[in-house]
């Protein structure tokens, strides 16, 4: 079976590309990126700030599985075109990792289908490889069992 989310990280390059096709119209895909309550649900983070505009900024906060540590991700928005693209920086605050530049492109595929392309540029090849191998604090822990709760609440 073809996997839906693809990560293309060419050897020796300080960038990578994540692509994913959604069985959703592009408007809904975009909405999931710009609506704080929805971002909180799928990213598994609190949204402290989310200014959806050029020169705006954002700040997300996540905590460990037992609420024992907090972790802030933030950045500034360089470009914002509704239903088309978001260009932003991303930084994990208070970590040794340098900020990265993210180009998010939202496209309509067919009626009711869309694609997200996320092009991430890192400070160096070494940093990219290090981040790829991180045991990800930001998401995995809280992912699975919460999904069903969230979906049920929305119905």
């Amino acid at each position: 079976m073809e996997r839906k989310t693809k990560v293309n990280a060419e050897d020796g390059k300080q960038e990578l590309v994540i692509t994913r096709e959604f069985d959703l119209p592009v408007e809904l895909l975009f909405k999931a990126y710009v609506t704080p309550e929805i971002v909180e649900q799928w990213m598994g983070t609190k949204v402290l700030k989310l200014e959806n505009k050029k020169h705006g900024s954002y700040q997300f906060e996540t905590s460990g599985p037992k609420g024992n540590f907090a972790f802030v991700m933030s950045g500034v928005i360089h470009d914002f075109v509704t239903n088309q693209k978001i260009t932003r920086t991303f930084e994990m605050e208070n970590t040794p990792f340098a900020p990265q530049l993210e180009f998010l492109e939202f496209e309509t595929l067919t009626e009711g289908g869309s694609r997200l392309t996320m092009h991430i540029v890192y400070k160096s090849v070494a940093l990219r490889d290090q981040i790829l191998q991180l045991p990800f604090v930001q998401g995995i822990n809280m992912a699975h069992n919460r999904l069903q709760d969230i979906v049920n609440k929305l119905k």
Partner: protein
Amino acid sequence: MNLRRDVFQAIADPTRRAILMLVASQSMTAGVIAANFDTARPTVSKHLQILTECELLKQEQAGREIYYHINAKKMKEVADFIEPFRQMWDDRFNKLEAIMKNYKPEK
């Protein structure tokens, strides 16, 4: 002429991933592999060459035939490196999709 091939470029191509999946089930000759695809035989040969150069496939001579088989060690290296990261995004995007299915498009 003999370009350096890297594995991530190799597995980025859907046909090459399909070849890897096919050969993973059993070793086979180029002819048998090509018979599984609509693609022209020289194109399949090119894909096999790339996969071999980056060591995802190994060639084994058996009589007059050359069999291709998966280089498990190399495949594991690739998977270990990228899979957890991919999985994290896949989980997030699966959630996103499930959540947004409950919304109606604003039109």
